[in-house]
């Protein structure tokens, strides 16, 4: 792809943003940052809030790391990345407390746990420390949106079946018996397993198709 070749020179391209949404989706493909994925997705609104908070931290830390990338020596880079990420996580923690105490209580310590989300450190190390600020912002946005999308898939599924509602809006008639297991921790494991199963199925099908018709398309 011509766009991919130009990227080597440091030019911006929409691929920086798009790859995070599907092809390199942090949760379904890279399987990174699993802890918050399972813990705070017992309702769609929690999932959305967590996804947005992570995106916020990801974009800002990518920005700062890319800005300072020539200034940080190799030996201390992990330590400085962690310092920067922890700073923005503290910032987002106070912002959420100021916006809504209820949301803060619902998400609990998992806001602070964004700092050990392998996704953010991974992007800082793999991308932001080697690319321009503009591209790092796009990368952060793409990965963040992809992450939020994955969280919403899980949170939505768990809330629909576990509480009979979506974003607090009741979907089923009152006689509906919710599947409590979906809100419980095991529900988180099962739901993610099923989503991964779906992804695997499509991946295997695409691989089978590509190995059968390589000559025709080229």
């Amino acid at each position: 792809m011509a766009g991919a070749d130009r990227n080597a020179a440091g030019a911006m391209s929409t691929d920086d943003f798009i790859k995070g949404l599907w092809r390199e989706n942090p949760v379904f493909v890279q399987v990174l940052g699993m802890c918050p994925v399972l813990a705070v997705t017992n309702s769609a609104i929690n999932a959305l809030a967590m996804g947005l908070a992570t995106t916020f931290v990801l974009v800002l830390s990518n920005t700062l790391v890319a800005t300072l990338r020539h200034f940080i020596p190799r030996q201390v880079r992990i330590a400085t990345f962690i310092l920067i990420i922890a700073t923005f996580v503290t910032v987002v923690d106070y912002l959420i407390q100021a916006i809504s105490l209820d949301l803060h209580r619902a998400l609990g310590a998992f806001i602070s746990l964004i700092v050990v989300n392998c996704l953010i450190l991974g992007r800082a190390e793999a991308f932001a420390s080697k690319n321009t600020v503009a591209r790092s912002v796009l990368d952060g946005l793409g990965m963040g949106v992809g992450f939020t999308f994955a969280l919403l898939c899980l949170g939505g599924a768990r809330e629909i079946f576990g509480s009979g509602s979506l974003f607090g809006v009741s979907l089923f008639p009152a006689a509906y018996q919710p599947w409590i297991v979906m809100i419980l921790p095991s529900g988180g494991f099962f739901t993610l397993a099923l989503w991964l199963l779906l992804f695997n199925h499509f991946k295997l099908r695409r691989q089978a198709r590509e190995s059968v018709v390589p000559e025709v398309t080229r």
Partner: protein
Amino acid sequence: MQSASGQHNAAHPPVWPLYRALVGVGLVCGLLIVSVFVLTGPVIARNEAEALQRAVFQVLPGAVAKASFELGPDGSFHPADQGSAPQGTVHAGYDTDGHLVGVAIEAQGMGYQDTIRLLYGYAPQSQAIIGMEVLSSKETPGLGDKIEKDPAFRANFRALDVSIAADGRSLQRPVEAVKSGSKTLSSQIDGITGATISSKAIAAILRQSSAQWVPLVYRLQDELEGERKGEGQINGGG
């Protein structure tokens, strides 16, 4: 400048850039955190005060104003400032005439799944608990979390008897939970079927906290009434 020292530094990289980077980044980060902290501080404090006030008015029906007190080392109540520890603080609620409706006390303890935090209102005039709100709990959804919403369970706390015994230092009958529907004394709590342990946990938390606070508040209730006149309208509208 670097070539000669570059040879020498192949084994030991220059230390100055390392310190410069760490300290520089540390300063930038510190500045960011402190600014956000200072900016959001007042907003967060206001949010917490509003949430507390809402909870206090819920457990003290009829209260329209509140004032917070903490137990001083001399064994009497002093007006508390906003940042005091919640464990040693009680919140007095006053009605429109300025009379003491009751005192809201926070308590916590182990539930079925995790810690339960609750706020209950004690009215010295009727010697009863007149309201209870669960502040935070992680009980099993659909079962244990009924302690928060079940109307029959919440009816237990409209007039839960916590009369003082003759010695003035303990309760006549400690709060206890009984099987649903078998409540005979007004100091008992009708448990929730299917959530026995959660119901017992609430009773245990109330039992322990009331044994500690109720005799104290009963003895010193005049102090709380008197302080209100000094406070004036400070906490009235807020």
